[in-house]
């Protein structure tokens, strides 16, 4: 078999389900770190995040035959891990942003680059004070660098709603970051 890293995710998924299930290791290798980072942002607990990602990978393997290879594998995988993380949050009653959830206010849009820098610099302070509803699309957009369409596929919400939530989240981040300074 040629080197697995030459194949796209979708081709690898096809290989796993039809030829060689050990190729799944390559898919895990590609997404392990990204998904752990994403799950940790959501859950705020490394061990629980690792559980969510592990369960996500297992579920993805069990249901691999339901994956439509015409679609993006990464969106499908993120969706599974996202659901696992949300289930874990409800199960453990860990409300990530209980201490200070910022209310929506009016405001103007900020430059994306500024937001990106702010999020990266003050990661926990900025993100943990935002309601999960807005935090998730913002994390996917800025930190995981997903497109609106991919976020729509991961969260199963219309693209318009993705845009609205990201814009509102930007305003919230601006308020939090300004408060800090």
């Amino acid at each position, binding site marked *: 078999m040629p080197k697995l890293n030459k194949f796209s995710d979708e081709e690898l998924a096809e290989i796993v389900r039809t030829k060689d*299930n050990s190729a*799944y*290791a390559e898919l895990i290798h590609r997404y392990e770190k990204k998904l752990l980072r994403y799950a940790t942002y959501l859950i705020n607990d490394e061990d629980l995040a*690792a559980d969510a990602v592990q369960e996500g990978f297992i579920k993805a393997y*069990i249901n691999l035959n339901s994956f439509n290879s015409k679609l993006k594998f990464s969106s499908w995988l993120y969706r599974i891990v996202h659901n696992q993380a949300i289930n874990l949050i409800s199960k453990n009653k860990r409300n990530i942003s209980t201490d200070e959830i910022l209310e929506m206010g009016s405001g103007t849009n900020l430059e994306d680059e500024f937001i990106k820098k702010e999020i990266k610099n003050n990661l926990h302070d900025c993100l943990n004070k935002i309601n999960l509803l807005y935090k998730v699309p913002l994390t996917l957009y800025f930190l995981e660098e997903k497109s609106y369409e991919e976020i729509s596929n991961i969260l199963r919400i*219309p693209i318009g709603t993705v845009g609205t939530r990201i814009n509102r989240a930007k305003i919230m981040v601006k308020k939090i970051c300004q408060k800090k300074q």
Partner: protein
Amino acid sequence: MSKKTINLEKNIMAKVKSGKITMKPRWYFILGSLLMIAGLSGLSIGAIFLTNLSFFLLRQHGPRGDYRLQLMLESFPWWIPFLAIIGIVGGVWILKKYDFSYKKNFSLIVIGFVLSILAAAFIIDYSGLNDFWSHQGPMRGFYQRLKNQDSVFPTKKGGGQGGQRKFTE
């Protein structure tokens, strides 16, 4: 980073290799899709039929028919629209499972679905199919019992004949 995190790939692949986790076969998902299509079709057809039946009964005995409102409210077979509503709700629930449901405006999809059922039911009733079915064919008995406000379900005494009060006289 915790130890659990480091061993993620190893843990999962050990389970895959040992056969502790196996892929569900393709037919399992095909069967699921077929059942979903069958469920949606069945619920839609059922909802159309029951809504059409409600229109038919309203036309027969409604405000312009031989019932007075109070009499109609007392004797109308409410199980028909009730089941029709359950069918519509079930149909909407299945629609939500489809991939396209989140890409479009789901409220519009629901409104379209409900309006389609109402329109189909109205067209069936308007086309005279109910009148035809109530006079001939295998559905005749069912329609006659409904028109006479008898129970369509067999009862202990009357076996479906005269199980409820009649208001047609």
